[in-house]
């Protein structure tokens, strides 16, 4: 009794693997199992034949040769392009295009850096709290804990420290001395 990995209902799977089989890209075990199925399945065998015929046709038609004239000038044109590519650094659009072609992800990295910078800048502006001018000296839900740790006047001034009647607000009053 033949050991079949692929049963009769697995023909669609086998057909999908026929390409890899003819390309010699299947693992040895899988290849044996597929061959075992082919030995027992006319439909898949016919499909294999079609694929082999198609492959021959494709190979016969895809090979295109470089025309003689173009082949002879090929290296010269390559040299010309090399010379152009190795020209002194140009900082125009072409130069940047070349640089970014070799490192396509450079575009994405640059875009990411730029986007992040813009986001940070925007976030700074948006998140920065703007203090609304105090419109009232009543407690704004915050316990009044303004502390005057030290205060002193100047050579021609003295200061007085007092609070509002409700003790909410500290006031530092400067008394300028009369100048003679």
């Amino acid at each position, binding site marked *: 009794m033949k050991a079949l990995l692929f049963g009769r209902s697995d023909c669609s799977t086998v057909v999908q693997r026929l390409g890899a089989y003819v390309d010699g890209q299947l693992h040895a075990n899988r290849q044996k199992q597929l061959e075992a199925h082919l030995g027992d399945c006319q439909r898949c065998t016919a499909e294999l034949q079609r694929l082999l015929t198609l492959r021959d046709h494709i190979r016969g038609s895809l090979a295109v040769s470089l025309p003689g004239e173009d082949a002879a000038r090929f290296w010269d044109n390559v040299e010309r392009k090399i010379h152009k590519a190795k020209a002194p650094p140009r900082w125009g659009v072409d130069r940047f*295009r*070349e640089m*970014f*072609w070799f490192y*396509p*992800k450079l*575009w*994405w990295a640059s*875009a*990411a850096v730029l*986007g*992040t910078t813009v*986001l*940070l800048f925007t*976030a*700074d502006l948006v*998140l*920065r*709290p*703007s*203090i609304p*001018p*105090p*419109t*009232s*000296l*009543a*407690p*704004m839900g*915050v*316990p*009044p*804990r*303004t*502390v*005057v*740790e*030290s*205060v*002193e*006047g*100047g*050579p*021609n*001034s003295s*200061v007085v420290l*007092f*609070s*509002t*009647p409700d003790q*909410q*607000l*500290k*006031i*530092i*009053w*400067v*008394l*300028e001395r009369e100048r003679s």
Partner: protein
Amino acid sequence: MTTQRFHLASGWRGRGLVIVLILVLLPFLRPIHLAAAPTVVLQAQIFLASNQPGAAPDARLAGLIAQLRKAIPYSNFLLLAAPSGRTEVGKVWRTELPGGEVQRGRVLELTPMAIDRAAIQIQARVVQARIVQGKSVSETLVDTTLKLQSGGLPVVIGGPQYQNGVLVIVISASAP
């Protein structure tokens, strides 16, 4: 033929990388912003307090002015300016004050010294220039160290002469 060399469409992997990068960085925007240097937002509302009759004050300031009137014996409070700014801890923020012997010679200096949770320690100085023997000399009118609650009640410094009244400066601070 001009070879079309460049293509942004280098695959979804490139785009995905950018999206992932941005999404990963987004939660860190604020901490990144803060980690740079602690900053304090400062504001000074500069009033001219006098007994001269004047125009009706801004309705938004009515409550504030009513409070000031209770403590400061002037009938009229005119808002002259309300400068604000942001500065790093340890750095001075300056704003001009009207008056003084020398034009533009009177300055309010606020220096955040430290931030302790919601309390901001600030050194506040009012400095003005005077003419002494023909030379301009800077002298301090008041030098005080305060601790204000971030976004909380302000402190008032008043008294420097100006026109027909005195200056009253309402100082508030906030640490974002």
